[in-house]
């Protein structure tokens, strides 16, 4: 009898290893499989038991309850703790899993499992295609950079393909620093081969023979699993023409900005570069370089395997395909929700998220990480779409939605936005380096009611200066959460 015990960070932090150990100590003939997580984080550790109809789910299992759960033998569908078939859980059944199709289903580092579930089909197709046609397929899919900037991936690849150079690189940005986002981690921990496959295809498309995955130091398990997967893929011959290695970052948020990331990969301080030249022309070590987020690259295999038409059929407006939304913070049902663009924020927060974990009304949602606006409930009918979010001064970013309940002190969150920018500024440009520190001070004055009205005007001016004058998105966008709080929660700042 197969029993699945997830082994991603979320499940492990809730005692998944202890569950696996307890299962092996039972006097039952069990085959304990360590799968990844389905991304239904609020149910972790989610134990799955094979049955004739499919895999049955048992959520929030505590290691201490294993002996009771298995007291009458392997529990079946009639057991009080059984959630039913995992695939039929509405949270999962209502999703469109294209990029995260395999997570939680397969054993993360089993190449056979990966291939049995459609792995390397995209690569086989790509190998039969001319480089320009691979790029054309990515362009036709409508895929836009999932790291946050939403730049069309195909156009970026075309630029690198067209660039002349004896050497080109594929760099995967796995420096997922935005609070409220964790899908890169899920992919790397639960389906690492899909990222490897995406990078090999990118290499074929632009003529690059070397790649780096720059992964944050805060993700030790993801780094470990990627290294294992790379070794396995290499042994199987997949990396014969593409050298791939993981590089560990060192705790700087700014290194998620692509030019800082390249500086860091080169062994330097992670300070941003002036643009132009674009990294696509002069990137890593001065060579033409594709820099893509984990999710962008992990979406490539499905696009190639099933054709760009199928991918771009999903979506809304100019936002094509699916977005891997991550529900986070004070949400009842936090987890990964991969859906086509076009759902409303309310559907995500209520139908999937089920409201707040504390049971109190939602006060605001911060979308797109620490540089994204706080969105009030009055705007929850906004559709998930890059342009629709932009219209209300918000951003989709990497797809994180952090929920806050009505007890949140929004003035404090504005203060934190500036504080975070001050901590993480690379220091290269003045509006960001100094502006963020001044921002903290001005907000302090407003909050202690020192010439509050004058200081509000000053804060507005300061925010505008940072937006207009900063070199990159950190200083250029850190004011947005502050401005959104001044606009929508004016009695709190």
């Amino acid at each position, binding site marked *: 009898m197969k029993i699945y015990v997830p082994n991603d960070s979320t499940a492990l932090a809730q005692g998944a290893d202890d569950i696996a150990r307890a299962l092996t100590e039972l006097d039952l003939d069990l085959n304990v499989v360590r799968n990844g997580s389905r991304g239904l984080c609020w149910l972790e550790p989610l134990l799955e038991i094979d049955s004739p109809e499919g895999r049955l789910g048992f959520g929030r299992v505590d290691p201490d309850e294993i002996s009771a759960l298995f007291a009458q033998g392997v529990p079946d569908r009639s057991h009080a703790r059984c959630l039913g078939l995992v695939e039929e859980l509405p949270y999962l059944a209502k999703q469109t899993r294209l990029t995260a199709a395999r997570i939680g289903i397969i054993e993360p580092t089993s190449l056979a499992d990966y291939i049995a579930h459609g792995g390397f089909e995209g690569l086989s197709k790509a190998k039969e295609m001319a480089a320009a046609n691979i790029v054309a397929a990515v362009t036709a899919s409508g895929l836009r950079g999932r790291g946050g900037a939403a730049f069309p991936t195909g156009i970026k690849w075309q630029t690198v393909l067209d660039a002349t150079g004896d050497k080109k690189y594929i760099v995967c940005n796995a420096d997922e620093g935005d*609070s409220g986002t964790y899908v890169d981690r899920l992919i790397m921990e639960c389906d690492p081969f899909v990222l490897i496959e995406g990078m090999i295809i990118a290499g074929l498309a632009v003529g690059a023979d070397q790649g780096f995955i720059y992964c944050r130091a805060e993700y030790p398990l993801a780094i470990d699993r990627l290294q294992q997967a790379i070794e396995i893929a290499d042994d199987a011959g997949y990396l014969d023409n593409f050298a791939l290695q993981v590089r560990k970052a060192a705790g700087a948020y700014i290194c998620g900005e692509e030019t800082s990331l390249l500086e860091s990969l080169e062994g330097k301080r992670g300070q941003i570069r002036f643009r132009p030249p674009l990294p696509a022309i002069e990137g890593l070590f001065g060579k033409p370089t594709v820099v893509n987020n984990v999710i962008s690259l992990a979406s490539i295999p499905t696009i190639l395997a099933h054709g760009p038409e199928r991918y771009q059929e999903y979506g809304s407006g100019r936002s094509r395909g699916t977005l891997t939304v991550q529900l986070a913070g004070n949400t009842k049902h936090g987890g990964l929700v991969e859906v086509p663009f076009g759902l409303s924020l309310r559907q995500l927060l209520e139908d999937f998220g089920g409201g707040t974990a504390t049971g109190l009304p939602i006060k605001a949602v911060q979308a797109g990480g620490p540089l994204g606006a706080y969105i009030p409930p009055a705007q929850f009918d906004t559709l998930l779409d890059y342009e629709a979010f932009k219209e209300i001064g918000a951003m989709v970013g990497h797809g994180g939605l952090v929920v806050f*309940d009505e007890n*949140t002190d929004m003035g404090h969150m504005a203060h*934190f936005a500036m504080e975070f920018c001050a901590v993480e500024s690379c220091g290269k440009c003045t509006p960001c380096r100094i502006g963020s520190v001044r921002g903290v001070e001005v907000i302090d004055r407003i909050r202690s009611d020192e010439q509050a009205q004058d200081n509000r005007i000053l804060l507005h001016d300061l925010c505008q200066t940072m937006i207009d004058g900063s070199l990159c998105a950190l200083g250029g966008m850190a004011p947005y959460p502050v401005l959104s709080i001044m606009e929508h929660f004016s009695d709190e700042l």
Partner: protein
Amino acid sequence: MTNVDIKQVTLEIATPLLNEPGALLPILHALQDHFGYIPTESVAVVARGLNLSRAEVHGVISFYDWFQTAPGGSKTLYICRAEACQAMGAAALEASVKKLLGIDFHQTSRDGSVTLQPVYCLGNCACSPNVMIDDKLYSRVTAESLAGVLAAISEQAS
């Protein structure tokens, strides 16, 4: 370990990595993994190996929060300060830990068992608040549950 020993060990750790493209970060990580921090004595050795100035190597070390330049406690406790954890009470958790250990961020508890560091997101934002102790993640942490873990660590260290 004497200064000479540190330099020797640094050389042994750094030499196989010197020809890696962009070798400095991998070398610094390897040194920190070995020593628990990056000793001052290592800087000149690394600089010479990579044909950099000591100032350049120092500049890189000081840029990144992950790199430590002095020995810390036997374990490092990273408390997430980012928004998703704040939405679930991270600020109160942080205050209670600081009070319990009697230290602020970047300091080590008096018994030498734990160094406290802030971190901005551990990527487990649906099960907040989160902390990490060395490589081990703890989620849905409460002041009480964390106090229990810290007590066990303190006992081990003594």
